[in-house]
């Protein structure tokens, strides 16, 4: 079975500061990795995904994540956040070659303050 751990339930930062949201996973088989974002009163939206190839993945809204196989991590970063980035962020995995159902972490609430 797979599991995903998001180490921080809440991350407060000031506008224009850099941010890193941490994600670690556990799996005995190969997985794909995802970050989703949920803005208030909206559904989940895909930010970025790692399938294969380059370990640095760039997504929408200036976010990027780096896959580290040895540390089983997939941390999300943004060099300078905006008020509009306030949302809940979810890390997820799916098993390669499966029906691609997602296993999620508990989510990290990012609050960007002026």
């Amino acid at each position, binding site marked *: 079975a797979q599991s*995903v751990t998001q180490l921080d339930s809440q991350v407060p930062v000031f506008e224009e500061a850099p941010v890193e949201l941490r994600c670690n996973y556990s799996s005995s088989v190969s997985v*794909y990795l995802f970050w*989703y974002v949920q803005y208030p*009163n*909206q*559904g*989940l*939206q*895909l930010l970025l*995904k790692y*399938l*294969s190839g380059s370990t640095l993945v760039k997504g929408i809204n200036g976010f990027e994540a780096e896959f580290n196989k040895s540390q089983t991590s997939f941390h999300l970063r943004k060099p300078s956040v905006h008020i509009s980035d306030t949302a809940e962020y*979810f890390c*997820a995995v799916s098993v*390669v070659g499966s*029906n*691609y*159902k*997602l*296993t*999620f*972490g*508990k*989510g990290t609430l990012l609050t960007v303050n002026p």
Partner: protein
Amino acid sequence: EAGVTQFPSHSVIEKGQTVTLRCDPISGHDNLYWYRRVMGKEIKFLLHFVKESKQDESGMPNNRFLAERTGGTYSTLKVQPAELEDSGVYFCASSQDLGQTETQYFGPGTRLLVL
């Protein structure tokens, strides 16, 4: 193109009642997934349809939950009878094909509160 829609957006019912949630996937998407988030916990997979067939229902909590996708278009998830622990947000997602490049598109969720 319309996204995934879910109805109702909110539902408040009493323990023992029945509730039916509906999901309309993106047109042409064969794959439909149901997930649930209980307060304070992670989003968990419930089941997966390919067209009208259930491919994986390993996440369904118990036999009080019944999901259908007649005709391979919209899907319903019925909870009968509802219990307090069924409260949470129910998400639906759809994708076109099963492949590594396919993205699951999520609806806004149905917030269910069982009193």
